């Protein structure tokens, strides 16, 4: 409790207070008069001073969208709130308040200078979003744990820190500790840290810092690795062949297949599973599909790149032409305008104005023709691109699905997966039947578990079990295939849609721009007419 709220009653930020505050800081003299005349919109305000107003609660600040600097010092604020919308804030002063915890600052990513001097804060945290933080003032608070300093290591831009007046500043090692753990810091408690101190501090805390650094580096490396893996997966996803570069599909086939797992314990089955004939082949197919998918992705990408490049070039060229036309027109227009201004005789003026307006409409025609031409050209190109991309996608799907492999000696279609599964199923059935026969004869292996034995009661059961396992496997394969096909198709349609939409947007924008310009020209001419008439 810094201040007792005795003298004045606590207040809340309301419209009146804000208007008053904004009004107080408006420019002086002539400009001030103008500002008063017109009024100032809250969203145009860049800095706001609300100090010494006994404010208890921050509120009603959401209108100040573009605020860069906010001063709320010397109030009786107890909680940081209501600042979520002020994302452009660079400077925030909350000193001399009654704040106990740091909070509500998660959206202020541009904040560089934060002052929480003379509050009741006991712990530094919730500042993670403030990556640009340079100056942090936390003096005269209740911070008593040295570990808070280590938290501050994440702020790479932090150069100035003040922590004096906290319990930790009483610790004898305080300064050294901070200098050692925050080596980029330049000013501590309003004093420059000299190089000598830095060296001494580093020497003192050398080992612990090294350890800390090592840990941080490990963490960093881990995160990077994770990131890389995610990116890789993302890349595979865009190629629609994620998780096909290994035995993932095969494993997932057996993941939910209890019968299959049971059956795999049969003698001969495990060999069947592990041998090159089934599992490996399956994996090879998957990997081939995966590689084929990546290759196709590359193809689609180059297709898209050339397309966008060409479109971009065309648009640029068109814009250049338009600009040239406008520049030419403007040159002429300026000359004729000045000629009109100097002309005295009315009929001549009228004639010239008429000429000018025809010029303007000619320009309009020319620009619109250019635009329409471009629209036509682009339409054609987009159609062509759509045809090509749809064809590419179709080819990919067909090849992945088809019964006939696109290259003879490679195993790379889903159909082949199915074939393989069918083959495996047959073999499994064979083994099961033979095992059943053995069971019927009573000479079943002793080491088979009870579950498995349960299957070999009669032929139906075993066939059903094997069949169920087979069905599950096939289902998995089908699902994967379906997923691939639907996703690639939807990607294709979305892409084409987006291209068309963009083109339409562009066209509308351009037309709007042209008409705006022409309107302006016309109105300028009209104004000239009026003024001439008035004269």
């Amino acid at each position, binding site marked *: 409790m810094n201040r007792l709220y005795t003298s004045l009653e606590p207040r809340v930020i309301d419209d009146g207070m804000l208007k008053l505050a904004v009004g107080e800081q408006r420019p002086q003299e*002539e400009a001030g008069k103008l500002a008063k*005349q017109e009024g100032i*919109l809250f969203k145009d305000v860049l800095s706001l001073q609300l100090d010494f107003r006994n404010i208890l609660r921050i509120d009603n600040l959401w209108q100040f969208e573009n605020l860069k600097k906010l001063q709320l010092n010397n109030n009786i604020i107890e909680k940081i709130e209501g600042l979520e919308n002020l994302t452009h804030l660079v400077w925030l002063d909350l000193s001399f308040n009654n704040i106990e915890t740091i909070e509500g600052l998660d959206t202020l990513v541009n904040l560089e200078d934060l002052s929480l001097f003379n509050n009741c804060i006991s712990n530094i945290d919730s500042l993670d979003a403030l990556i640009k933080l340079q100056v942090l003032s936390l003096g005269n608070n209740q911070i008593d744990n040295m570990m808070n300093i280590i938290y501050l290591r994440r702020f790479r831009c932090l150069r100035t820190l003040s922590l004096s007046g906290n319990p930790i500043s009483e610790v004898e090692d305080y300064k050294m500790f901070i200098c050692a753990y925050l080596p980029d810091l330049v000013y501590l408690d309003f004093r420059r840290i000299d190089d000598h101190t830095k060296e001494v501090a580093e020497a003192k805390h050398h080992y612990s810092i090294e350890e800390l650094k090592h840990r941080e580096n490990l963490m960093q490396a881990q995160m990077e690795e994770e990131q890389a893996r995610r990116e890789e997966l993302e890349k595979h996803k865009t190629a629609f062949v994620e998780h096909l570069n290994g035995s993932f599909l095969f494993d997932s086939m057996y993941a939910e297949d209890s019968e299959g797992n049971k059956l795999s314990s049969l003698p001969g089955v495990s060999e069947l599973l592990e041998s090159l004939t089934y599992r490996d082949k399956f994996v090879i197919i998957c990997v081939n599909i995966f590689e084929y998918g990546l290759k196709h992705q590359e193809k689609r990408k180059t297709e898209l790149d050339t397309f966008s*490049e060409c*479109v971009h070039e065309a648009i640029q060229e068109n*814009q250049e032409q338009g600009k040239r036309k406008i520049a030419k027109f403007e040159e002429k227009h300026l000359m004729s305008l000045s000629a009109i201004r100097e002309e005295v005789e009315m009929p001549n003026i009228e004639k010239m104005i008429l000429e000018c307006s025809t010029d303007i409409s000619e320009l309009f025609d020319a620009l619109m023709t250019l635009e329409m031409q471009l629209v036509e050209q682009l339409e054609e190109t987009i159609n062509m691109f759509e045809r*090509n991309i749809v064809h590419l996608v179709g080819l990919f799907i067909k090849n992945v699905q088809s019964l006939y492999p696109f290259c003879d000696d490679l195993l790379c279609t889903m159909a082949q997966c199915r074939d393989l599964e069918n083959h495996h199923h047959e073999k499994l059935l064979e083994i099961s039947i033979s095992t059943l026969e053995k069971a019927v004869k009573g000479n079943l292996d002793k080491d088979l578990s009870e579950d498995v034995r349960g299957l070999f009661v009669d032929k139906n059961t075993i066939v059903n079990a094997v069949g169920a396992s087979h069905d599950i496997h096939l289902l998995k394969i089908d699902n994967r295939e379906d997923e691939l096909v639907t996703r690639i198709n939807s990607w294709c349609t979305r892409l084409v849609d987006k291209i068309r939409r963009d083109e339409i947007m562009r066209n509308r924008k351009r037309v709007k*721009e042209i008409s705006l310009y022409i309107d*302006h020209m016309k109105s300028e001419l009209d104004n000239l007419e009026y003024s001439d008439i008035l004269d």
Partner: protein
Amino acid sequence: MEVLREKVEEEEEAEREDAAERAERARTEKMMRQVEVRKEETTLTQEMLRDLEKKLSEIRIPVSVEVPAFTKDTIDISMLPVSYKTNTSKEEQLLQLADNFSRQYSHLCPDRVPLFLHPLNECEVPKFVSTTLRPTLMPYPELYNWDSCAQFVSDFLTMVPLPDPLKPPLHLYSSSTVLKYQKGNCFDFSTLLCSMLIGSGYDAYCVNGYGSQDLCHMDLTREVCPLTVKPKETIKREEKVLPKKYTIRPPRDLCSRFEQEQEMKRQQEIRAQEEKRLKEEEERLMEAEKANPDALHGLRVHSWVLVLSGKREVPENFFIDPFTARSYSTQDEHFLGIESLWNHKNYWINMQDCWNCCKDLIFDLGDPVRWEYMLLGTDKPELFLTEDDSGINNEDDVENLHSWVEQIEISPEAFETRCPNGKKVIQYKRAKLEKWAPYLNHNGLVSRLTTYEDLECTNILEIKEWYRNREDMLELRHINKTTALKTDYFKPGHPRALRVHSYKSMQPEMDRVIEFYETARVDGLIKREETPRTMTEYYRGRSDFLSYRHVDFGPRVKKLTLSSAESNPRPVVKITERFFRNPAKPAEEDVAERVFLVAEERIQLRYHCREDHITASKREFLRRSEVDSEGNKIIVTPDMCITFEVEPMEHTKKLLYQYETLMHLKKEEKLSRRQVWESELEVLEILKLLKEEEEVHTLTISIYDTKRNEKSKEYREAMERMMHEEHLRQVETQLDYLAPFLVQLPPGEKLTRWQAVRLKDECLSDFKQRLINKANLIQARFEKETQELQKKQQWYQENQVTLTPEDEDLYLSYCSQAMFRIRILEQRLNRHKELAPLKYLALEEKLHKDPRLGELLKMFT
């Protein structure tokens, strides 16, 4: 009979031997006599020479000789080494071989000219031409390549025409002599050049052949000066970009194909006519330029250098004319035929027909049908393989082909001076090139090219002057006489970062263009163009992104006082400024162009165009009567600003925004006007600086140039002087302290012990006296100072009341100085007192050790 025959045979043999012996003796005698002749040259050679000269003058066809002929009587042969004056036995052998070869050749080809195999050298000794070549690698890196090498030879030597233009010369002097006198005929030139080229690794040969008149007389008046030929602009072949898959189709062309074709045809016709006209014109000119045909065409003997491909990455064979240092292709029509060629190892005769100049010659020296070689085994490698065995036999011949010429040496001074007396003039077709050695001209001029309009060289078209080592870094001055435009080119390093300055007069406010090295300037100015009423500046790399500023000036307001441009700048009518795109700002806030119409009080702004837009925002401020007379009160009204915005924004509509922008612009306008004024001032300053530089034209001297660099010379001399003084001092320290005492004794006698002791005592007492004297002297001075000070103090105390403050100051300063002096004297005295006994002991010690006294004294002690 048998015996008889044998006897006869024996006799014959003896006779033969005798004859051989006699011949041998005769030859050696002759040689001896020759050597003797050399020794008594003063009398004999003169006569011989006169004879020779007479004979030569009889033979000589009168040629227009401007340069005094390089004859033997100008050469001092007394200093030449023995190898110049005699032949070794190997050389004799070689000469015999050559003679034999020559005889066979003339027998086989009787209709051909005798070979140029062993001309006489400066000492009248026949020498085989291959041995006259002395392959030498020059220590100058500039002479490593053939072009600079040839240029050096052509610059360094003065050309002397052949005594008989139809025959090879009788003499071929060594390159060292030629270099010494800096004169020579074509054979001397090519021998020197060939030696240097072979030395630096080229496969080069001296050629004896026939050349055109221009070539033989080093007449370049029909040649276009290589410096005037503009390098042909390499036409960049536009790479046809393959139309990409999605390139948009061009809009349909609605023009008539037929009309286009007709138009094209018409154009072509016009062009053809034009071309025809030009061609005719050219032909006419050519006709005028063509010289009257040469009566001796194809007979004029010339010598040049052939460089074969293969070594030093030479891609194909070419000729170098040593006179002009120009390279020609082997097909060039100036070269009319080849008799023979040689390098330092072998000699080849051309067996090919030269009816078509040298165009059909094949330079495969390994082909014995085309090229008859003289020495075996030194052939081109391709032949070496086939005739391996025969090659080995003659190997020692090859090995021992040593040159008799001394190492070719060019002193650094001569190398720098290059041309004889450091000056050379070459006349080209419609051009004259003058060359000077660096530092010869006071203004650093090293070469001047004057181009003329006509063939007679009377109307000067333009002058180009190259400078070197100028302190103001002026490199080239180009004066166009027709337009009177001067263009100066500067190297980096001018104090004002000037690069190019083109002007007609040095008066300010005239047409001029100054270009700068913008990286050396703080303001990033690239170019400033001036006309009497405008100034345009181009910038690059500025933090405010300014790229262009154009100023229109009005007529100067007349002032009563004498006004210079500095005190009375011209009124600015209009300033146009353009800016590059500032990527940090959005396009609609980034000004692309702003125009201050100062006279009309208007400001026009044009903003940059956004990436995907074709129109740009514009804003125009009219500042009509908004400033009150007393202050900056401006009444802003909505009609003061005409705005067009591509995307209308809310805040820009406000008056406040407009007002602020306007105020900002007003400030900027003031700043721009100030910058304009500064630019004008800078131009004045530059002009002043240039004028000063023109008058002073100091030349820079490299710190490594020990000969010219006065400063370093002084420094070096000072060092030497210091060394000398040091040396003197050392001598002085060894000064004999006993000398004055020894003089008293009779000289040359050995000292007796008694004498020695006396000597020592005298010496010591003398030294003691000196020490005491010195102490007394110091003491006396000390006392004197003290007394004076006391006097002064007394005087001060007496007159203290009446003193002026200045006097008091004077007194005080005197006191402090006197005190200082006294203190020093005191210190000196103390020091002397301390050191005196030590010095005395030291002398005693020294005397003890003195070799003259030491022994005697030792015995005594």
